[in-house]
Protein backbone atom coordinates (compact mmCIF):
# COMPACT_ATOMS: atom_id res chain seq x y z
CA UNK A 1 0.00 0.00 0.00
CA UNK A 2 1.74 3.12 -1.18
CA UNK A 3 1.88 5.90 -3.71
CA UNK A 4 4.42 5.56 -6.49
CA UNK A 5 5.05 8.48 -8.79
CA UNK A 6 6.81 7.48 -11.96
CA UNK A 7 8.41 10.00 -14.35
CA UNK A 8 5.66 12.53 -13.81
CA UNK A 9 5.75 15.71 -15.89
CA UNK A 10 3.32 18.57 -15.94
CA UNK A 11 3.48 21.37 -18.46
CA UNK A 12 0.85 24.05 -18.61
CA UNK A 13 -0.15 26.56 -21.28
CA UNK A 14 1.71 24.44 -23.83
CA UNK A 15 2.54 26.31 -27.00
CA UNK A 16 1.91 29.80 -25.63
CA UNK A 17 4.22 32.46 -24.27
CA UNK A 18 3.26 31.37 -20.74
CA UNK A 19 4.39 27.76 -21.17
CA UNK A 20 5.80 26.42 -17.94
CA UNK A 21 7.30 23.11 -16.98
CA UNK A 22 5.79 22.92 -13.50
CA UNK A 23 6.85 19.35 -12.72
CA UNK A 24 9.93 17.79 -14.23
CA UNK A 25 10.41 14.06 -14.22
CA UNK A 26 9.25 13.42 -10.66
CA UNK A 27 9.99 9.96 -9.25
CA UNK A 28 8.82 9.35 -5.73
CA UNK A 29 7.63 6.63 -3.40
CA UNK A 30 5.41 7.45 -0.45
CA UNK A 31 4.94 4.59 1.96
CA UNK A 32 1.99 3.84 4.16
CA UNK A 33 1.91 5.66 7.48
CA UNK A 34 4.76 8.00 6.67
CA UNK A 35 4.85 11.58 7.92
CA UNK A 36 6.38 13.63 5.13
CA UNK A 37 7.30 17.29 4.84
CA UNK A 38 7.11 18.69 1.33
CA UNK A 39 9.14 21.88 1.21
CA UNK A 40 9.76 24.48 -1.45
CA UNK A 41 9.13 28.14 -2.00
CA UNK A 42 6.27 29.62 -4.00
CA UNK A 43 6.35 28.34 -7.55
CA UNK A 44 8.55 25.33 -6.79
CA UNK A 45 5.81 22.94 -7.88
CA UNK A 46 4.90 21.58 -4.46
CA UNK A 47 1.23 22.54 -4.63
CA UNK A 48 0.98 21.30 -8.20
CA UNK A 49 2.40 17.96 -7.13
CA UNK A 50 -0.14 17.54 -4.33
CA UNK A 51 -3.01 18.20 -6.69
CA UNK A 52 -1.77 15.38 -8.88
CA UNK A 53 -1.90 12.96 -5.97
CA UNK A 54 -5.68 13.07 -5.71
CA UNK A 55 -6.31 13.44 -9.41
CA UNK A 56 -7.42 17.08 -9.44
CA UNK A 57 -4.67 17.69 -11.98
CA UNK A 58 -3.50 15.25 -14.58
CA UNK A 59 0.14 14.91 -15.54
CA UNK A 60 1.24 15.68 -19.10
CA UNK A 61 3.24 12.46 -19.05
CA UNK A 62 4.22 9.79 -16.54
CA UNK A 63 2.16 7.70 -14.13
CA UNK A 64 0.97 7.62 -10.56
CA UNK A 65 0.22 4.31 -8.87
CA UNK A 66 -2.02 4.25 -5.86
CA UNK A 67 -1.89 0.90 -4.05
CA UNK A 68 -0.51 -0.69 -7.18
CA UNK A 69 -3.14 0.66 -9.55
CA UNK A 70 -2.33 3.25 -12.18
CA UNK A 71 -4.68 6.17 -11.56
CA UNK A 72 -4.41 7.21 -15.19
CA UNK A 73 -5.95 3.90 -16.35
CA UNK A 74 -9.17 4.40 -18.24
CA UNK A 75 -11.16 2.32 -15.80
CA UNK A 76 -9.71 3.86 -12.66
CA UNK A 77 -12.31 5.36 -10.36
CA UNK A 78 -11.10 8.94 -9.74
CA UNK A 79 -13.89 9.64 -7.32
CA UNK A 80 -12.78 6.86 -5.02
CA UNK A 81 -9.22 8.18 -5.23
CA UNK A 82 -10.41 11.53 -3.89
CA UNK A 83 -12.00 9.70 -0.99
CA UNK A 84 -8.73 8.00 -0.18
CA UNK A 85 -6.40 10.94 -0.67
CA UNK A 86 -7.72 13.90 1.32
CA UNK A 87 -6.39 17.28 0.31
CA UNK A 88 -6.65 20.31 2.58
CA UNK A 89 -5.97 23.43 0.53
CA UNK A 90 -4.16 26.56 1.64
CA UNK A 91 -6.48 28.84 3.62
CA UNK A 92 -9.06 26.03 3.73
CA UNK A 93 -11.43 28.18 5.77
CA UNK A 94 -12.22 29.98 2.50
CA UNK A 95 -14.16 26.92 1.38
CA UNK A 96 -16.58 26.85 4.33
CA UNK A 97 -20.14 27.48 3.19
CA UNK A 98 -22.71 25.80 5.46
CA UNK A 99 -24.80 27.47 8.15
CA UNK A 100 -23.29 25.43 10.97
CA UNK A 101 -19.94 23.88 11.70
CA UNK A 102 -21.41 20.41 11.91
CA UNK A 103 -23.23 20.64 8.57
CA UNK A 104 -20.07 21.83 6.90
CA UNK A 105 -18.07 18.89 8.20
CA UNK A 106 -20.83 16.54 6.99
CA UNK A 107 -20.45 17.79 3.40
CA UNK A 108 -17.60 15.42 2.51
CA UNK A 109 -19.04 12.21 3.95
CA UNK A 110 -22.45 13.06 2.46
CA UNK A 111 -20.86 13.28 -0.99
CA UNK A 112 -19.47 9.80 -0.36
CA UNK A 113 -23.05 8.54 -0.27
CA UNK A 114 -22.98 7.22 3.30
CA UNK A 115 -26.14 6.86 5.38
CA UNK A 116 -27.09 9.62 7.79
CA UNK A 117 -25.89 7.83 10.92
CA UNK A 118 -22.49 7.12 9.42
CA UNK A 119 -22.18 10.70 8.23
CA UNK A 120 -22.85 12.12 11.66
CA UNK A 121 -20.60 9.65 13.41
CA UNK A 122 -17.75 10.54 11.14
CA UNK A 123 -18.33 14.25 11.60
CA UNK A 124 -18.25 13.87 15.39
CA UNK A 125 -15.12 11.83 15.19
CA UNK A 126 -13.42 14.32 12.88
CA UNK A 127 -14.27 17.18 15.22
CA UNK A 128 -12.65 15.31 18.05
CA UNK A 129 -9.59 14.55 15.98
CA UNK A 130 -8.91 18.23 15.31
CA UNK A 131 -9.65 19.24 18.88
CA UNK A 132 -12.92 21.13 18.32
CA UNK A 133 -15.32 21.42 21.23
CA UNK A 134 -18.78 19.93 20.85
CA UNK A 135 -20.41 23.23 21.82
CA UNK A 136 -19.28 24.63 18.48
CA UNK A 137 -21.49 22.15 16.61
CA UNK A 138 -24.22 24.65 15.86
CA UNK A 139 -22.06 27.74 15.58
CA UNK A 140 -21.80 29.46 12.22
CA UNK A 141 -18.39 28.69 10.75
CA UNK A 142 -18.07 32.35 9.78
CA UNK A 143 -18.09 33.51 13.39
CA UNK A 144 -15.15 31.45 14.60
CA UNK A 145 -11.58 32.59 15.08
CA UNK A 146 -9.03 31.99 12.34
CA UNK A 147 -7.54 28.95 14.05
CA UNK A 148 -10.93 27.40 14.73
CA UNK A 149 -12.10 27.91 11.16
CA UNK A 150 -9.04 26.12 9.95
CA UNK A 151 -9.77 23.19 12.25
CA UNK A 152 -13.30 22.98 10.91
CA UNK A 153 -11.97 22.88 7.36
CA UNK A 154 -9.45 20.16 8.22
CA UNK A 155 -12.17 18.19 9.99
CA UNK A 156 -14.25 18.46 6.81
CA UNK A 157 -11.60 16.49 4.96
CA UNK A 158 -10.83 14.09 7.83
CA UNK A 159 -14.50 13.13 8.04
CA UNK A 160 -14.08 11.45 4.68
CA UNK A 161 -11.66 9.03 6.38
CA UNK A 162 -8.82 9.39 3.90
CA UNK A 163 -5.88 7.00 3.93
CA UNK A 164 -3.57 9.83 2.96
CA UNK A 165 -3.94 13.36 4.26
CA UNK A 166 -2.23 16.20 2.43
CA UNK A 167 -2.19 19.64 4.04
CA UNK A 168 -1.07 22.60 1.96
CA UNK A 169 0.45 25.26 4.25
CA UNK A 170 -1.88 24.49 7.14
CA UNK A 171 -0.32 27.20 9.31
CA UNK A 172 -0.34 30.12 6.84
CA UNK A 173 -1.51 33.32 8.51
CA UNK A 174 -1.77 31.82 12.02
CA UNK A 175 0.13 33.29 14.96
CA UNK A 176 3.00 31.29 16.55
CA UNK A 177 0.82 29.63 19.17
CA UNK A 178 -1.91 28.84 16.64
CA UNK A 179 0.72 27.40 14.34
CA UNK A 180 2.15 25.12 17.05
CA UNK A 181 -1.31 24.01 18.10
CA UNK A 182 -2.30 22.98 14.57
CA UNK A 183 1.00 21.19 13.94
CA UNK A 184 0.82 19.38 17.28
CA UNK A 185 -2.72 18.34 16.46
CA UNK A 186 -1.64 16.98 13.08
CA UNK A 187 1.25 15.08 14.67
CA UNK A 188 -1.14 13.63 17.25
CA UNK A 189 -3.56 12.65 14.54
CA UNK A 190 -0.82 10.91 12.61
CA UNK A 191 0.23 8.97 15.69
CA UNK A 192 -3.30 7.99 16.68
CA UNK A 193 -4.79 7.03 13.34
CA UNK A 194 -1.60 6.10 11.57
CA UNK A 195 -2.66 7.64 8.29
CA UNK A 196 -0.05 8.89 5.84
CA UNK A 197 0.42 12.64 6.27
CA UNK A 198 2.06 14.97 3.77
CA UNK A 199 2.68 18.41 5.17
CA UNK A 200 3.36 21.07 2.55
CA UNK A 201 5.22 24.08 3.83
CA UNK A 202 7.82 26.69 3.01
CA UNK A 203 9.19 26.69 6.50
CA UNK A 204 11.84 24.15 7.40
CA UNK A 205 11.79 25.08 11.05
CA UNK A 206 8.08 24.39 11.36
CA UNK A 207 8.06 20.90 9.99
CA UNK A 208 11.53 19.63 10.87
CA UNK A 209 10.64 18.40 14.32
CA UNK A 210 7.53 16.53 13.21
CA UNK A 211 8.32 14.66 10.02
CA UNK A 212 10.20 11.43 9.24
CA UNK A 213 11.23 12.54 5.79
CA UNK A 214 11.68 15.79 3.93
CA UNK A 215 11.12 16.22 0.23
CA UNK A 216 12.54 19.51 -1.01
CA UNK A 217 11.35 20.82 -4.34
CA UNK A 218 12.94 23.47 -6.50
CA UNK A 219 11.82 24.66 -9.94
CA UNK A 220 9.62 21.63 -10.48
CA UNK A 221 12.26 19.11 -9.52
CA UNK A 222 13.04 17.14 -6.39
CA UNK A 223 16.17 18.68 -4.91
CA UNK A 224 16.42 16.58 -1.74
CA UNK A 225 14.58 13.57 -0.41
CA UNK A 226 15.85 12.30 2.93
CA UNK A 227 15.56 12.52 6.71
CA UNK A 228 15.54 16.10 8.03
CA UNK A 229 19.02 15.65 9.53
CA UNK A 230 20.51 14.56 6.23
CA UNK A 231 18.70 17.25 4.26
CA UNK A 232 19.84 20.01 6.59
CA UNK A 233 23.45 18.83 6.26
CA UNK A 234 23.19 20.47 2.83
CA UNK A 235 22.32 23.81 4.36
CA UNK A 236 24.52 25.71 1.93
CA UNK A 237 22.80 24.14 -1.08
CA UNK A 238 19.43 24.85 0.50
CA UNK A 239 20.33 28.48 0.77
CA UNK A 240 21.29 28.59 -2.88
CA UNK A 241 17.72 27.63 -3.79
CA UNK A 242 16.23 30.25 -1.49
CA UNK A 243 15.44 28.02 1.47
CA UNK A 244 17.11 27.98 4.85
CA UNK A 245 17.81 25.22 7.33
CA UNK A 246 16.64 25.82 10.91
CA UNK A 247 18.77 28.33 12.82
CA UNK A 248 20.11 25.62 15.14
CA UNK A 249 21.68 23.85 12.16
CA UNK A 250 23.67 27.00 11.50
CA UNK A 251 24.64 27.31 15.15
CA UNK A 252 25.89 23.72 15.31
CA UNK A 253 27.82 23.96 12.06
CA UNK A 254 29.37 27.27 13.08
CA UNK A 255 30.40 25.84 16.45
CA UNK A 256 32.04 22.91 14.75
CA UNK A 257 33.97 25.21 12.40
CA UNK A 258 35.14 27.19 15.43
CA UNK A 259 36.59 24.00 16.89
CA UNK A 260 33.93 22.83 19.34
CA UNK A 261 33.40 19.13 18.57
CA UNK A 262 29.60 19.08 18.47
CA UNK A 263 27.56 16.87 16.17
CA UNK A 264 25.79 18.91 13.51
CA UNK A 265 22.68 16.74 13.43
CA UNK A 266 20.41 18.49 15.97
CA UNK A 267 17.44 20.18 14.32
CA UNK A 268 15.42 21.30 17.31
CA UNK A 269 16.27 23.63 20.16
CA UNK A 270 15.96 20.74 22.62
CA UNK A 271 18.38 18.50 20.72
CA UNK A 272 20.86 21.33 20.23
CA UNK A 273 20.82 22.17 23.92
CA UNK A 274 21.51 18.55 24.89
CA UNK A 275 24.35 18.28 22.42
CA UNK A 276 26.05 21.53 23.42
CA UNK A 277 25.77 20.67 27.09
CA UNK A 278 27.12 17.18 26.48
CA UNK A 279 30.22 18.44 24.67
CA UNK A 280 30.87 21.31 27.06
CA UNK A 281 30.52 19.11 30.14
CA UNK A 282 32.98 16.61 28.79
CA UNK A 283 35.47 19.13 27.44
CA UNK A 284 35.75 21.67 30.20
CA UNK A 285 34.44 19.95 33.26
CA UNK A 286 32.23 22.97 33.84
CA UNK A 287 29.79 22.83 36.68
CA UNK A 288 26.47 22.46 34.95
CA UNK A 289 23.14 22.40 36.60
CA UNK A 290 20.58 20.03 35.11
CA UNK A 291 16.95 20.88 35.47
Amino acid at each position, binding site marked *: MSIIIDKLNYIYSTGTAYEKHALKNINLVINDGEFIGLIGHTGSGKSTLTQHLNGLMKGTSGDIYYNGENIYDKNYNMKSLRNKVGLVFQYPEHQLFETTVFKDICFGPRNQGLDELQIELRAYEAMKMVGLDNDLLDASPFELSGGQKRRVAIAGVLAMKPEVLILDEPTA*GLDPKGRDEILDQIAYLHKESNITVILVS*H*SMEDVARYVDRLIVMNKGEIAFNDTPQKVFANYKELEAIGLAAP*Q*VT*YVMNELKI*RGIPVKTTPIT*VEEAKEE*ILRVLKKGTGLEIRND
Partner: protein
Amino acid sequence: MGIIRSENLTFEYIRRDEEGNVESINRAIDHVNIDVQKGDFVAILGHNGSGKSTLAKHINSILVPTEGTMWFKDMNTSDEDKLWDIRQSAGMVFQNPDNQIIATVVEEDVGFGPENLGVPTEDIWRRVEESLNAVGMMEYRTHSPNKLSGGQKQRVAIAGIMAMKPECIVLDEPTAMLDPNGRKEVIRTVKELNEKEKVTVILITHYMEEVISANKVFVMDEGKVVMEGTPKEIFSKVDMLKKYRLDVPQVTELAFELKRSGLSIPEGILSIKELVDAICKL
Protein backbone atom coordinates in the same frame (compact mmCIF):
# COMPACT_ATOMS: atom_id res chain seq x y z
CA MET B 1 6.41 64.91 22.22
CA GLY B 2 6.22 62.17 19.66
CA ILE B 3 4.65 61.95 16.24
CA ILE B 4 2.12 59.38 17.46
CA ARG B 5 0.70 59.62 20.95
CA SER B 6 -2.24 57.95 22.59
CA GLU B 7 -3.75 58.62 25.93
CA ASN B 8 -5.97 56.03 27.57
CA LEU B 9 -7.01 54.88 24.12
CA THR B 10 -9.91 52.47 24.37
CA PHE B 11 -11.90 50.94 21.56
CA GLU B 12 -14.96 48.74 21.77
CA TYR B 13 -16.58 46.75 19.00
CA ILE B 14 -20.26 46.96 19.76
CA ARG B 15 -22.54 44.41 18.20
CA ARG B 16 -26.20 45.21 17.92
CA ASP B 17 -29.11 42.96 17.11
CA GLU B 18 -31.77 43.78 14.52
CA GLU B 19 -33.64 46.18 16.81
CA GLY B 20 -30.48 48.10 17.58
CA ASN B 21 -30.11 46.81 21.13
CA VAL B 22 -26.58 46.16 22.26
CA GLU B 23 -25.88 42.45 21.98
CA SER B 24 -22.27 42.31 23.02
CA ILE B 25 -19.38 44.62 23.68
CA ASN B 26 -15.90 43.53 22.86
CA ARG B 27 -13.13 45.72 24.19
CA ALA B 28 -10.39 45.43 21.56
CA ILE B 29 -8.13 48.11 23.01
CA ASP B 30 -8.01 48.81 26.69
CA HIS B 31 -6.48 52.07 27.94
CA VAL B 32 -3.39 52.11 25.79
CA ASN B 33 -0.74 54.81 26.16
CA ILE B 34 1.96 54.93 23.55
CA ASP B 35 4.43 57.55 22.42
CA VAL B 36 6.36 57.12 19.18
CA GLN B 37 9.12 59.52 18.19
CA LYS B 38 9.65 60.79 14.66
CA GLY B 39 12.01 58.51 12.73
CA ASP B 40 11.43 55.53 15.01
CA PHE B 41 11.06 51.98 13.76
CA VAL B 42 8.46 50.54 16.08
CA ALA B 43 7.22 46.97 16.02
CA ILE B 44 3.92 46.02 17.59
CA LEU B 45 3.77 42.34 18.43
CA GLY B 46 0.85 40.29 19.50
CA HIS B 47 -1.06 37.11 18.72
CA ASN B 48 -4.14 37.16 16.50
CA GLY B 49 -6.90 39.00 18.33
CA SER B 50 -4.58 40.85 20.70
CA GLY B 51 -5.78 44.21 19.40
CA LYS B 52 -2.66 45.19 17.49
CA SER B 53 -4.41 45.73 14.15
CA THR B 54 -7.20 47.67 15.80
CA LEU B 55 -4.61 49.94 17.38
CA ALA B 56 -2.91 50.44 14.02
CA LYS B 57 -6.17 51.50 12.39
CA HIS B 58 -6.47 54.32 14.92
CA ILE B 59 -3.25 55.95 13.75
CA ASN B 60 -4.69 57.06 10.41
CA SER B 61 -8.20 57.49 11.67
CA ILE B 62 -9.81 54.46 10.01
CA LEU B 63 -11.13 53.83 13.50
CA VAL B 64 -11.66 56.47 16.16
CA PRO B 65 -11.41 55.81 19.90
CA THR B 66 -14.47 54.96 21.97
CA GLU B 67 -12.67 56.57 24.88
CA GLY B 68 -9.37 58.41 25.24
CA THR B 69 -7.46 60.17 22.49
CA MET B 70 -5.02 59.45 19.68
CA TRP B 71 -2.83 62.21 18.29
CA PHE B 72 -0.95 62.11 15.05
CA LYS B 73 1.43 65.06 14.66
CA ASP B 74 -0.62 66.89 17.29
CA MET B 75 -3.81 66.38 15.29
CA ASN B 76 -6.57 64.63 17.16
CA THR B 77 -7.58 61.67 14.98
CA SER B 78 -11.21 62.11 16.06
CA ASP B 79 -11.24 65.57 14.45
CA GLU B 80 -12.96 65.11 11.10
CA ASP B 81 -11.54 68.30 9.61
CA LYS B 82 -8.05 66.86 9.91
CA LEU B 83 -8.97 63.47 8.44
CA TRP B 84 -7.29 63.86 5.04
CA ASP B 85 -4.21 65.59 6.43
CA ILE B 86 -3.76 62.66 8.79
CA ARG B 87 -4.26 60.05 6.10
CA GLN B 88 -1.86 61.74 3.71
CA SER B 89 0.84 61.81 6.33
CA ALA B 90 0.19 58.44 7.94
CA GLY B 91 0.09 55.89 5.14
CA MET B 92 -1.10 52.36 5.71
CA VAL B 93 -0.15 49.05 4.08
CA PHE B 94 -2.50 46.12 4.67
CA GLN B 95 -2.17 42.37 4.97
CA ASN B 96 -3.59 41.09 1.71
CA PRO B 97 -1.50 42.37 -1.19
CA ASP B 98 -4.24 41.70 -3.73
CA ASN B 99 -6.92 43.68 -1.97
CA GLN B 100 -5.11 47.01 -1.88
CA ILE B 101 -3.88 47.36 -5.43
CA ILE B 102 -6.43 49.32 -7.41
CA ALA B 103 -5.01 49.71 -10.90
CA THR B 104 -4.17 47.14 -13.57
CA VAL B 105 -0.71 48.61 -14.19
CA VAL B 106 1.94 48.99 -11.47
CA GLU B 107 2.80 52.64 -12.13
CA GLU B 108 -0.84 53.67 -12.30
CA ASP B 109 -1.45 52.10 -8.93
CA VAL B 110 1.43 54.01 -7.39
CA GLY B 111 -0.03 57.18 -8.89
CA PHE B 112 -3.44 56.60 -7.29
CA GLY B 113 -2.63 58.27 -3.97
CA PRO B 114 -1.11 61.45 -5.47
CA GLU B 115 -4.06 61.64 -7.89
CA ASN B 116 -6.43 61.65 -4.93
CA LEU B 117 -4.40 64.40 -3.28
CA GLY B 118 -4.73 66.56 -6.39
CA VAL B 119 -1.01 66.61 -7.14
CA PRO B 120 -0.23 68.14 -10.60
CA THR B 121 0.41 65.58 -13.34
CA GLU B 122 4.14 66.25 -13.71
CA ASP B 123 4.70 65.89 -9.99
CA ILE B 124 2.78 62.61 -9.97
CA TRP B 125 5.18 61.15 -12.50
CA ARG B 126 8.17 62.29 -10.49
CA ARG B 127 6.73 60.88 -7.27
CA VAL B 128 5.83 57.59 -8.93
CA GLU B 129 9.36 57.18 -10.24
CA GLU B 130 10.94 58.11 -6.93
CA SER B 131 8.73 55.72 -4.98
CA LEU B 132 9.22 52.83 -7.37
CA ASN B 133 12.97 53.37 -7.16
CA ALA B 134 12.82 53.51 -3.38
CA VAL B 135 11.22 50.05 -3.20
CA GLY B 136 13.24 48.66 -6.10
CA MET B 137 10.29 47.99 -8.39
CA MET B 138 11.17 50.38 -11.21
CA GLU B 139 11.69 47.64 -13.78
CA TYR B 140 8.13 46.42 -13.22
CA ARG B 141 6.46 49.78 -13.73
CA THR B 142 4.44 48.76 -16.77
CA HIS B 143 3.63 45.25 -15.53
CA SER B 144 0.26 43.97 -14.42
CA PRO B 145 0.11 43.44 -10.64
CA ASN B 146 -1.47 40.02 -11.20
CA LYS B 147 1.77 38.61 -12.51
CA LEU B 148 3.90 39.73 -9.54
CA SER B 149 4.89 37.67 -6.50
CA GLY B 150 3.36 38.43 -3.11
CA GLY B 151 6.48 40.25 -1.91
CA GLN B 152 6.59 42.36 -5.06
CA LYS B 153 2.91 43.26 -4.71
CA GLN B 154 3.53 44.44 -1.16
CA ARG B 155 6.45 46.56 -2.36
CA VAL B 156 4.14 48.13 -4.96
CA ALA B 157 1.65 48.84 -2.17
CA ILE B 158 4.43 50.45 -0.12
CA ALA B 159 5.47 52.55 -3.14
CA GLY B 160 1.84 53.63 -3.47
CA ILE B 161 1.99 54.96 0.08
CA MET B 162 5.44 56.53 -0.36
CA ALA B 163 4.14 58.49 -3.35
CA MET B 164 1.87 60.39 -0.96
CA LYS B 165 5.04 61.60 0.84
CA PRO B 166 3.98 60.46 4.28
CA GLU B 167 5.96 61.01 7.45
CA CYS B 168 4.88 57.68 8.84
CA ILE B 169 3.99 54.28 7.40
CA VAL B 170 1.85 51.85 9.33
CA LEU B 171 2.18 48.28 8.08
CA ASP B 172 -0.59 46.02 9.31
CA GLU B 173 0.80 42.47 9.13
CA PRO B 174 2.29 43.07 5.69
CA THR B 175 4.04 39.69 5.67
CA ALA B 176 1.36 37.39 7.07
CA MET B 177 0.42 36.04 3.65
CA LEU B 178 3.92 35.86 2.16
CA ASP B 179 6.51 33.12 1.91
CA PRO B 180 9.89 33.52 3.68
CA ASN B 181 11.56 35.16 0.67
CA GLY B 182 8.71 37.62 0.24
CA ARG B 183 8.82 38.39 3.95
CA LYS B 184 12.53 39.21 3.87
CA GLU B 185 12.03 41.34 0.77
CA VAL B 186 9.33 43.45 2.43
CA ILE B 187 11.17 43.88 5.72
CA ARG B 188 14.36 44.86 3.93
CA THR B 189 12.43 47.50 1.97
CA VAL B 190 10.78 48.88 5.08
CA LYS B 191 14.07 49.06 6.91
CA GLU B 192 15.67 50.93 4.05
CA LEU B 193 12.86 53.45 3.91
CA ASN B 194 13.27 54.04 7.62
CA GLU B 195 17.01 54.56 7.31
CA LYS B 196 17.26 56.46 4.03
CA GLU B 197 14.00 58.37 3.82
CA LYS B 198 13.68 58.81 7.60
CA VAL B 199 10.09 57.61 7.53
CA THR B 200 8.63 56.64 10.89
CA VAL B 201 7.65 52.96 10.67
CA ILE B 202 5.03 51.12 12.67
CA LEU B 203 5.25 47.42 11.85
CA ILE B 204 2.50 45.14 13.09
CA THR B 205 3.49 41.49 13.02
CA HIS B 206 3.57 38.20 14.82
CA TYR B 207 6.82 37.05 13.26
CA MET B 208 9.54 37.60 15.79
CA GLU B 209 12.42 37.60 13.30
CA GLU B 210 11.00 40.78 11.78
CA VAL B 211 11.14 42.66 15.03
CA ILE B 212 14.91 42.55 15.25
CA SER B 213 15.29 45.57 12.93
CA ALA B 214 13.08 47.73 15.14
CA ASN B 215 14.42 50.13 17.73
CA LYS B 216 11.38 49.79 19.91
CA VAL B 217 8.92 46.97 20.48
CA PHE B 218 5.45 46.96 22.00
CA VAL B 219 3.86 43.64 22.90
CA MET B 220 0.09 43.56 23.07
CA ASP B 221 -2.24 41.10 24.74
CA GLU B 222 -5.98 41.42 25.34
CA GLY B 223 -6.01 45.00 24.13
CA LYS B 224 -3.27 46.18 26.49
CA VAL B 225 0.37 46.99 25.94
CA VAL B 226 2.00 44.42 28.21
CA MET B 227 5.67 44.78 27.32
CA GLU B 228 7.72 47.65 25.95
CA GLY B 229 11.42 47.95 25.17
CA THR B 230 14.22 47.32 22.70
CA PRO B 231 14.21 43.98 20.85
CA LYS B 232 17.02 42.82 23.12
CA GLU B 233 15.08 43.62 26.25
CA ILE B 234 11.95 41.98 24.91
CA PHE B 235 13.72 38.84 23.72
CA SER B 236 15.43 38.31 27.03
CA LYS B 237 12.01 37.49 28.47
CA VAL B 238 11.34 34.27 26.61
CA ASP B 239 8.94 32.93 29.23
CA MET B 240 6.77 36.01 29.18
CA LEU B 241 6.59 36.05 25.39
CA LYS B 242 5.44 32.44 25.38
CA LYS B 243 2.76 33.34 27.86
CA TYR B 244 1.46 35.90 25.36
CA ARG B 245 1.20 33.21 22.67
CA LEU B 246 4.34 34.46 20.95
CA ASP B 247 7.51 32.80 19.94
CA VAL B 248 11.18 33.71 19.83
CA PRO B 249 13.73 32.93 17.10
CA GLN B 250 15.40 29.54 17.58
CA VAL B 251 18.78 31.06 18.50
CA THR B 252 17.21 33.20 21.18
CA GLU B 253 15.42 30.21 22.62
CA LEU B 254 18.54 28.06 22.50
CA ALA B 255 20.55 30.78 24.25
CA PHE B 256 17.81 31.09 26.86
CA GLU B 257 17.73 27.34 27.45
CA LEU B 258 21.52 27.10 27.72
CA LYS B 259 21.58 29.96 30.17
CA ARG B 260 18.90 28.28 32.22
CA SER B 261 21.07 25.16 32.30
CA GLY B 262 23.80 27.17 33.94
CA LEU B 263 25.98 28.39 31.09
CA SER B 264 26.94 32.02 31.38
CA ILE B 265 25.42 33.38 28.22
CA PRO B 266 24.20 36.97 27.96
CA GLU B 267 20.50 37.77 27.78
CA GLY B 268 18.54 38.61 24.67
CA ILE B 269 20.68 36.98 22.01
CA LEU B 270 19.28 37.73 18.56
CA SER B 271 21.71 36.34 16.00
CA ILE B 272 23.53 33.10 15.26
CA LYS B 273 26.86 34.90 15.46
CA GLU B 274 26.18 36.31 18.92
CA LEU B 275 25.32 32.87 20.26
CA VAL B 276 28.30 31.13 18.67
CA ASP B 277 30.61 33.86 20.01
CA ALA B 278 29.15 33.51 23.47
CA ILE B 279 29.55 29.73 23.52
CA CYS B 280 33.12 29.91 22.21
CA LYS B 281 34.04 32.33 24.98
CA LEU B 282 33.04 29.83 27.69
